[in-house]
């Protein structure tokens, strides 16, 4: 018992220390987003990395998600004689929930890991210290462009994922489940409102921020060579995935 209590205390103090470091890092990164100099060339490069190069994986997951969703919805709702709502359920589920979450999780796996590995390697090879000695703020140069790119490009990715996911549902609905194409599209359009899409895009912006921030934070604080960079990469993907699901609930409860 005498050993147990100090251990609990140490864990708690370490947790508070880590939470404080993370909060300071986040606030500092955010404040640098609004202060010059702005590295537009780097922001552009990150937008291409995060947005353009994620398109194939996000597109593929979106089309299969839409297809599976149409199948499952049709199967479930047929039991209650309500198979006709398949198009509506697909479009609402994709725009409100599955588009943002699936796209963000894919970006977390692809980009969160890559950001953490790149910045982590820069940390353990003294490149971040080198930035400081060259009168360049590492937060401004490395973190801010990635955060801005995440904030801007993930909503665009989600918008594309929404369209592709709905198209996947349409393909299954019309070619496999026997829905009339015009009726399916009509149901989709009639039941889709602006808030369904915009709420998904708000979620996407928050998720993009989370992915970039967690990748940068874990990479920036990595220690101990290749093993440290590997650990940072894992932590970045796991923590951003958990945070995406947590904030998904929080935002859903606020927005709807």
């Amino acid at each position: 018992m005498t050993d147990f209590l100090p251990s609990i205390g140490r864990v708690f103090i370490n947790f508070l220390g880590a939470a404080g470091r993370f909060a300071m890092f986040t606030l500092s990164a955010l404040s640098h987003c609004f202060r010059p100099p702005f590295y537009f060339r780097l922001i552009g490069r990150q937008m291409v990395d995060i947005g353009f190069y994620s398109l194939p994986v996000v597109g593929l997951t979106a089309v299969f998600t839409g297809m599976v969703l149409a199948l499952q919805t049709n199967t479930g709702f047929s039991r209650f004689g309500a198979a006709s709502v398949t198009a509506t359920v697909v479009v609402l589920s994709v725009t409100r929930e599955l588009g943002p979450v699936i796209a963000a999780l894919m970006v977390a796996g692809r980009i969160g890991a890559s950001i953490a590995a790149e910045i982590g390697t820069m940390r353990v090879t003294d490149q971040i210290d080198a930035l400081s000695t060259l009168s360049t703020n590492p937060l401004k140069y490395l973190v801010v462009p990635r955060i801005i790119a995440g904030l801007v490009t993930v909503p665009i990715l989600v918008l594309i994922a929404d369209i592709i996911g709905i198209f996947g549902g349409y393909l299954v609905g019309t070619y496999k489940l026997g829905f009339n194409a015009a009726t399916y599209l009509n149901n989709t359009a009639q039941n889709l409102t602006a808030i369904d899409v915009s709420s998904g895009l708000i979620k996407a912006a928050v998720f993009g921020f989370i992915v970039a921030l967690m990748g940068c934070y874990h990479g920036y604080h990595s220690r101990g060579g290749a093993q440290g960079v590997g650990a940072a990469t894992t932590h970045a993907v796991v923590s951003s995935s958990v945070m995406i699901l947590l904030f998904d609930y929080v935002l859903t409860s606020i927005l709807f």
Partner: protein
Amino acid sequence: MSGAPKIEVRGLKKAFGRKVVLDGIDLDIGVGESVVVIGGSGTGKSVLVKCILGIIEPDAGSIKIDGQEVTTLSRGKREALLEKFGMLFQGAALFDSLLVWENVAFGLIQGRGMERNAAKKIAFEKLAAVGLGAEVGELRPAELSGGMQKRVGLARAIAATPEIIIFDEPTTGLDPIMGDVINDLIVKCVRDLGATAISITHDMASAHKIADRIAMIYKGRIIWTGAAKTIDNSGNPYVDQFIHGRADGPIQMEVRAL
């Protein structure tokens, strides 16, 4: 050393957890002087220079540069102060994502806002100064050998004509001939710029070649300092053991079985 010191370190302390790394360092470095700090691995040499650069915040003590206390400077003023510095890192620390010339010109473009073409011209001049041809400028750092990376790191360190240059283990990992080439380049660059230089190394051949004065750090303190040519007759048993690389002596290496 005569006149006011360029760098003045007093009572500098730094600990990481329970491990005390710097335990009251006192060191003065004069204008245009080249001081080499020697000492075993883990004795705090790198921490000392990182404190001077402001990369690590000391727990106590004072660091003055040109008479100005720097440990209490704001982030912005610290960044401005860093324009006085150039640094050659142990592993060169070149930016993988940039071309060699962009690495050399980085401080000019990002730090000083120089136009890219003008900075590129200076970068190629500095590459030539360290014996590298123009074709090297268009390569990626990963395509260079260790010795070439060190030269590029040196070109980057001197590109913005700094007043103070720091060399962290400049010859570590290089063959003796390439090590000597780097030493010659360091001496030439420091002399040409008239810069103040701080080097940290365990390579005594390098220390003899580039130092005006040598300081030895042991257990977080400077235990000996003197002119480079006097180190062989220092009369200090710690210094004697270190420079002759003897296992027996007052310095006991901490060796733990796995």
